[in-house]
């Protein structure tokens, strides 16, 4: 009997891989692929329909368009306010992302590393806001934003979207996990707290910052109810709100509607496909488990 650890390893992994290559294993893989195909089908079908002419959308039901055309896309770009909605969405989402991440990093650092009166109260307020449905405050947000005359403006749209307690909590927990020696060594060298934050703590977590930025951006781009309430004319709508407005206006011209929908999801879909690992990290972090 061998006591060589590598020999034991191979025998065990063959026991497992044998199970994976058994007929049942192959069948299970096949089933997985079929399920994935079914799950993805609605998106596939939307993409295909968006490449069909208005005529073809109601006449063709094949899995591929016989005469693919970009007329739906051209119509959506030329005949609707889509370019302006894109601009609005970009302004709002980028501002929300920058502000939320910046404020959360600062606040998370202060709560985690600095001792100041009111620190506990602040932390409890953040935990409380995490447990509360922000959606329940829409009426009051509307009244407050109307009160300062910011309805139908980008700033009015951005402001209530800045409430993001999860981001602060993730930052605070991340800073808590860093060894205290980093800070003490830097302070000994004569660094101020601000320098410690900007030069030591922030650079150590660009990964977390990237992950949180991407997920905040996706969330802001996709938010519906608040932008829908604040945007009072078509020129102030975000893409997410606009897509449903187009739907009402075009009726059954699904090729055009879906072309608009594809364009509306492009930035978030690309953000996910390029930063798959970071999105996963952000989601597991925000749920409080280690990925």
């Amino acid at each position, binding site marked *: 009997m061998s006591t060589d650890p590598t020999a034991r390893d191979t025998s065990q992994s063959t026991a*497992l891989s044998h199970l994976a290559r058994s007929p049942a294993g192959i069948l299970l893989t096949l089933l997985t692929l079929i399920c994935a195909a079914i799950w993805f089908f609605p998106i596939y079908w939307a993409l295909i329909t968006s490449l069909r002419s208005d005529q073809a959308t109601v006449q063709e039901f094949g899995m591929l368009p016989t005469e693919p055309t970009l007329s739906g896309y051209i119509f959506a770009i030329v005949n609707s306010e889509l370019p302006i909605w894109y601009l609005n969405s970009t302004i709002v989402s980028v501002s929300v992302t920058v502000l939320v991440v910046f404020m959360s990093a*600062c606040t998370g650092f*202060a709560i985690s590393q600095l001792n100041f009166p009111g620190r506990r109260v602040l932390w409890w307020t953040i935990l409380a806001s995490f447990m509360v*449905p922000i959606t*329940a405050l829409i009426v009051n947000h509307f009244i407050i934003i109307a009160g300062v005359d910011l309805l139908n403006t980008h700033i009015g749209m951005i402001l209530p979207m800045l409430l993001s307690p999860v981001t602060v909590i993730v930052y605070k927990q991340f800073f808590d996990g860093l060894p205290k020696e980093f800070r003490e060594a830097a302070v000994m060298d004569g660094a101020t707290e601000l320098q410690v934050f900007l030069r030591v703590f922030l650079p150590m977590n660009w990964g977390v910052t990237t992950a949180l930025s991407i997920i905040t951006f996706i969330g802001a781009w996709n938010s519906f109810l608040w932008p829908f*309430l604040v945007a009072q004319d078509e020129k102030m709508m975000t893409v*997410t709100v606009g897509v449903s407005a187009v739907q009402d206006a075009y009726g059954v011209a699904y090729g055009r509607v879906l072309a608009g929908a594809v364009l*509306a999801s492009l930035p978030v879909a690309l953000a996910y496909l390029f930063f798959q690992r970071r999105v996963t990290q952000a989601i597991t972090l925000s749920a409080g*488990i280690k990925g």
Partner: protein
Amino acid sequence: MLRNRRSDLLVAYLLTAPFILVYAWLFVWPVVQMVMLTFTDAPLIGDGKAVGFANYERMFKDPIFFKAIWNTSYFVLLTVIPGTAVALGIALMVSRLGGWLQSAVLAAFFLPYILPVTVVYVIWDWLTNVQFGMLQSVLEWVTGRPVNLWRAIPWFMPSVAVITIWWTNGFSILLFLAGLRNIPKDLYEAAALDGATRWQMFSRITWPLIWPITVLCLTIQLILQLKIFDQVYLFATGGRTQATMVLVQYIYEQAFQKNASGYAATIALALFVIVVVFSVLQFQLLRIRGQK
């Protein structure tokens, strides 16, 4: 030393000031204002008269309010447990795969999660269109005739629930995958050497070790789905909205269509209390888990 301490304080307040301002103005104040509004008959913009507890009395006698509570609960029931079960199943299937195949399959299951709700609405509105929708052939096969899912009340909530599971499940799938990855491989290897069956491996190793994640997913989903609005609102436009009214939608209707923000605030407070109760429960659960 004293100067140093004072400058530290200055830094602390400098760093937290923007956050505190935003939170005081847009979180603390709206909560206070919401409670104050419930005692008035205020319109959306402008002041109202004090009416005591009239809004509360009205709410507890309001059949539409209870209808909204019922519909919201029904929706929660249709999405939370089934959705979590489906997510666990998908995570188990995906975790078996490796390399590029796993990334591709995971992307197929996760992609819906990052779509805007209006895009989800447009995609499914097309799929379920009475005349030309692809899914109508499936429905016809089951019921014998095309069904307008969004105008037939018994079909409405279950359909929105299926679409919601399709849309939001990526989140739970990722949590389950992270949990499955944290289970030590040697447990399975030892079990395989002992001749354990697939089912025994699942019921004796995977299920007990994944249970904390399951509880987490269930509570996150519960709190999320109590706040349902977007999908129900979008799919119900043009229909009889009262029959399928959910809580947030009723707040919206009272404030923005009936111009009664006093009453809307009262319903909002009810939602507020319901969610807080569940959140505190969740927080306690997580704390218990953390102390272990």
